[in-house]
């Protein structure tokens, strides 16, 4: 997924990594808010986002650990939904490229698709370990 912002990459980087700024825009779907936004921005540090539905109190929790931080160009972190319907972990990478005052943000998701791999194996398809990982980056573009 790619999006261009009319701001320096330092500013865009901060907007993605400083909780007080993230809370102003990453609100979730209509009627939800980002109730908790904990960010420990260092390699090995954890983050935890909790979105809450104002109407019924339902919560969606996403957490992970930072694996790479290069301010203001690049962040990588693991990501896991606290929801049995979405098992497994993904690796998410953000890059921030600035040109002529515009910053291009790119988000890449690498899904650890163990279930898909099991299905492939059970159905007799020999596709090797490569089938365990589906690159879905382009899907959200």
């Amino acid at each position, binding site marked *: 997924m790619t999006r261009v912002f009319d701001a320096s990459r330092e500013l865009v980087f901060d907007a993605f990594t400083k909780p007080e700024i993230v809370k102003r825009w990453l609100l979730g779907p209509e009627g939800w808010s980002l109730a908790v936004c904990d960010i420990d921005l260092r390699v090995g540090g954890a983050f935890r986002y909790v979105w809450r539905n104002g109407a019924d109190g339902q919560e969606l929790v996403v957490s992970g650990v930072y694996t790479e931080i290069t301010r203001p160009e690049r962040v990588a972190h693991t990501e896991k939904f606290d929801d049995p319907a979405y098992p497994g972990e993904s690796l998410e990478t953000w890059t921030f490229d600035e040109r002529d005052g515009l910053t291009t943000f790119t988000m890449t998701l690498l899904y650890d698709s163990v279930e898909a791999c099991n299905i492939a194996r059970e159905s*007799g398809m020999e596709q090797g370990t490569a089938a365990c990982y589906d690159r879905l980056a382009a899907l959200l573009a």
Partner: protein
Amino acid sequence: MKLGSYGTNVPERLNATFMALADPTRRAILARLAESELSVTELAAPFAMSQPAISKHLKVLELAGLVSRRQDAQRRPCRIEAAPLAEVTGWLESYRRLWEGHFQRLDAVLDELKIDATGPKHTKRRRE
């Protein structure tokens, strides 16, 4: 996830659909079935692959609900089923809309941050 039936909940069905689509031969099969119903023999003809190999691919597509087969006298033609593809498209579209909403709010936040960074003098000038 158990094999043998089209998954009953959305995440399971999406898993099955993406897994089925993650293969060029299966995507080529779907592309041909999008034009017309075909038998396994007809499907296998243009591929450098045996009929049993094509049948295996068809099985995966059938389990994902992307292909169905009906009895027609001696033939069992394969036909494409659009529902799982529509579900995948809807899933992607909901995320696209959600993220575009987020990013439009972020545009506004960044504008405010830029004004803050340039100081109140600049803000005053803009207001005049």
